[in-house]
């Protein structure tokens, strides 16, 4: 039995931040949960989907974040508690609905979890989602630890119901994926029966009423936040420096002050409710100092809001010196960590502090170079995307018109790097590859001589590519769209999507077939197996010569990791060392130097390539590209 669904009040359990959020929602009696997967948020709905059936709640992987928020809002309107989770890009997709929903408000507790990815560790962009809190007057809660994530999620439902407004919960990668102890509370047994009150329509007009109502809700929220235990002060009565922080910054600051031994000199204001500001609480503590340092991740959200607040309260607070992103004391982009905080505080307090021996970094780098092989980001062994990009590269070289390949979001975004032979020239948002192709595909009339291509994954296709494809078909934009159908949402952890025939809760559902859908739009569609390299190259080439409208080539081959779990290797692959030409003219290590599947290794001793049998998934593609036919594939 999954620990998350157990009714074991008082039990202290080590949970990942995202699991803590899930447990908080379960205890709060959430009944409808929805999300489109996206790191670092994916485990929230992922873990809820595993306990959905036994808890009698509904969990779905929605087709995109906007739909996911609408699903949760639907539940809220019927009086149920709903939760949706997304990464920072997701709130952009959902924002159109969110910025209407704020005006109509919600009924059953509704929580929108947004997990930001500072430094874009697994994202295409870096973005601070808290801006939506201010933009939409939606209160955000910012947990610092898994324990707080759990507690805040549970409270966020109550808060939402009290305010009749969806609540945001902002996490970041290092919280979502860190683990900490969480003391469980009881599971809520009572579940309301859903009912939509048709006598009270939810319509954001007239805004003269709804916008005013929203601001009133925010005033009420402010009063609640003044009393919140998630905001606290820690430090001496008269500190030399006050650090204002939120999220994991709290832990970084604690660690820094402790290591430096300056806990008696520096105070910390830790905010858990970051908008609207708890003004009285802040007044009390900001009074104490002249120097204020802001430690937060991505944008100067607290920094700017508190500066504004200090200007308004200048009569009470007097002059302050603000330190943080604007002053250059902390970097204005990327993740922060204890080292960064240490450097800033050291400078401000004029203390010389050496967190580790001077040669540490050098020694660590040397040690790493000795024992860790140097690796670039790459596709997994047997990944169909490698074969696809290989064919794409060759077809474009043969075409010779300097074709433009527009990328999209998924594992295949690595196509912009050497893993995909540097084929992708743009990567933006979900579905933007085909959107951009719409634009470039209209430019032949002005003399653009380059063919336009775009690649898009199966999950991305359902998420946001379909409207752009309809646009292309109707407005006769000329491009070739490759749909890399690996039958899963691979990059975020193999979540099902409408092409897989499975739902989040494991039940079967009729597949929405990409080929049939495209054909219904009237788009010219071909379906090929990317492991058949020659056929794929020729098909891409042929489709590129057709300059009439949008063409779709579905390259269908299951993700190697999913396949490996289900069935044994397609082929046993081995290298005939007598035939292998190694570094000689005629080969020059094509397989390990250019193709670079991790299942292939260069053996410097024999000067020949070989198969790493532990890694090889037996797709057989390398046997087809070996110029010497030295790589042999045998049907297993």
């Amino acid at each position: 039995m999954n620990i998350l669904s157990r009714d074991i009040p008082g039990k202290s359990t080590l949970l990942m931040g995202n699991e803590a959020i899930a447990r908080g929602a379960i205890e709060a009696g959430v009944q409808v949960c929805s999300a489109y997967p996206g790191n670092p948020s994916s485990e929230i709905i992922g873990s809820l989907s595993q306990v959905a059936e036994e808890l009698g709640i509904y969990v779905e992987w929605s087709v995109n974040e906007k739909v996911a928020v609408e699903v949760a809002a639907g539940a809220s309107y019927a009086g149920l508690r709903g939760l949706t989770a997304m990464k920072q890009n997701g709130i952009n997709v959902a924002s159109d609905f969110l910025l209407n929903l704020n005006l109509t408000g919600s009924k059953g507790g509704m929580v929108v979890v947004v997990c930001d990815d500072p430094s874009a560790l697994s994202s295409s962009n870096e973005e601070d989602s808290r801006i939506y809190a201010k933009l939409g007057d939606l209160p955000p809660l910012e947990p610092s630890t898994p324990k707080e994530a759990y507690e805040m999620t549970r409270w966020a439902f109550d808060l939402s119901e009290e305010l009749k407004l969806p609540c945001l919960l902002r996490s970041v990668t290092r919280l979502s994926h860190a683990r900490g102890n969480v003391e469980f509370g009881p599971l809520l047994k009572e579940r309301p029966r859903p009912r939509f009150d048709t006598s009270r329509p939810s319509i954001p007009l007239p805004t003269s009423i709804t916008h005013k109502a929203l601001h009133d809700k925010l005033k009420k929220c402010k009063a609640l936040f003044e009393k919140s235990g998630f905001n606290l002060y820690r430090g001496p009565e008269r500190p030399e420096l006050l650090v204002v922080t939120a999220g994991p910054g709290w832990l970084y600051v604690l660690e820094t002050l402790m290591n430096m031994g300056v806990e008696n000199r520096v105070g910390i204001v830790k905010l858990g409710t970051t908008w609207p500001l708890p003004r009285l609480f802040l007044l009390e503590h900001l009074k104490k100092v002249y120097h204020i340092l802001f430690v937060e991740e991505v944008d100067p959200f607290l920094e700017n809001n508190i500066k504004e607040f200090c200007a308004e309260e200048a009569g009470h607070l007097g002059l302050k010196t603000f330190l943080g992103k604007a002053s250059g004391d902390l970097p204005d982009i990327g993740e922060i960590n204890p080292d960064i905080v240490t450097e800033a505080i050291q400078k401000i307090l004029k203390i010389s502090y050496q967190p580790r021996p001077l040669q540490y970094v050098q020694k660590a780098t040397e040690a790493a170079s000795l024992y860790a092989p140097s690796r670039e980001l790459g596709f997994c062994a047997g990944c169909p995307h490698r074969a696809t990009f290989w064919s794409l590269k060759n077809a474009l070289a043969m075409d010779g018109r300097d074709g433009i390949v527009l990328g999209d979001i998924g594992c295949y975004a690595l196509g912009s790097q050497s893993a995909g032979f540097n084929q992708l020239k743009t990567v933006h948002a979900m579905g933007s590859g085909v959107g951009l192709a719409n634009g470039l595909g209209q430019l032949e009339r002005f003399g653009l001589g380059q063919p336009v291509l775009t690649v898009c994954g199966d999950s991305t296709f359902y998420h946001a590519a379909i409207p752009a494809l309809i646009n292309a078909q109707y407005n006769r934009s000329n491009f070739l769209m490759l749909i890399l159908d690996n039958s899963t949402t691979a990059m975020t952890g193999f979540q099902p999507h409408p092409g897989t025939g499975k739902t989040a809760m494991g039940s079967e559902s009729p597949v929405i077939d990409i080929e049939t859908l495209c054909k219904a739009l009237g788009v010219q569609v071909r379906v090929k197996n990317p492991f058949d390299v020659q056929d794929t190259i020729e098909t891409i080439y042929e489709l590129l010569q057709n300059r009439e409208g949008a063409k779709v080539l579905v390259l269908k081959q299951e993700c190697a990791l999913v396949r490996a779990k289900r069935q044994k290797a397609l082929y046993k692959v081995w290298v005939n060392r007598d035939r292998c030409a190694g570094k000689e003219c005629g080969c020059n290590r094509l397989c390990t130097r250019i193709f670079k599947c991790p299942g292939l290794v260069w053996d410097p001793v024999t000067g020949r390539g070989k198969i790493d049998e532990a890694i090889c998934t037996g797709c057989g593609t390398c046997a087809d590209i070996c110029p010497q036919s030295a790589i042999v594939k045998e049907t297993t």
Partner: protein
Amino acid sequence: MDNKGFQALEASVIKKDLCTFCGACLSLCPYMQSWKGKWVKLDNCDLAEGRCFAYCPRTKVDLENLHWEAFGQSYSNLEMGLFKKVKMARASSPALRKKAQTAGVVSTLMGFALKERFINGAVLTQRASDHVPSGSVVRNPDKILSCAGSSYVAGPTLEALNRGPWEDKERIGIVGTPCQVLALRKMKGSPLKKTSQIDRVSLIIGLFCTWALTYDAFMKYLKNKVNGGRIRKLDITPPPERLLKVTTNDDRILDVSLDEIRPFIRTSCGVCLDMTSEFSDLSVGTVEGVEGWSTVIIRSDLGEEIFSRAEAAGRIESRPLPEENFKHLKEASLLKKKRALLKLKERGELEDGYLTLSSELIGRILSEVKEAE
């Protein structure tokens, strides 16, 4: 440049638009290929030494050295290389002559060499229905005619030699243009020949060539010209007419002035010093000859043997080449050399280009030839 591999080939030949598209570098490795009449780079190769660079007729060509290697003597016959005899010839079979471009001599000699087992396979140039030329291996003498005729478009014939596959001990005859014949000569002398098929090559029939065209641009132009019709045959008539006659599938004949197709001539042809395939066993072409006859330059003992045996077998008819025609041939050949040298000079590549030739010989070529036309 230290690199004498793919990167050097790219820098000194491809990027300078000097590729002749002979095919000598193709089907040796996975980094380049031919596709629809053009040379295509697929990936980078960083080897310091490669066969692609070594065999290319537009990388280092030291004519003096090559002559010593090939003939054991100095490069002295400036006009059209070393030769034993020059004749006029044609195939005896009128049916064969009708199918061939001019006189059927090349097809007849190759077919004869196959039949008499001088060679086991012939590497020829085949043209697909879309006129894309490619190398083709013919082992049956009756199939030779499928490769007869010309489209004046450069094709990667030597790719077929590299690609094979060849059986043990198979001997090969090749029909090639001067750049292809030069590449074969470079292969023969290359220290990198170990893994090539060059030692199988026993007979080289060279073609006369003044220039060749780039497939893409030329075909685009022609398609436009014939208004979507299909082209069956292309023929350039000898002076004084000098017209490209385009025969379509529905038997229309269009006359195109050569001036119109000059823009499609490969840049590399402009720096070529060889009109008559000087490193062949035997060269065949038409230069202001008598209609229906080809000029044949016999250079090697093997060339002489095959020619005389084919004649003795009644497959070939020959006549002495009239003195006037011989004079024209030498003038035309020398004129090509002079123009190539001037072009190299204009490109700033006379001293530091692909060609190594003593300043004395350069001086002689430039002074001996007078513009004939």
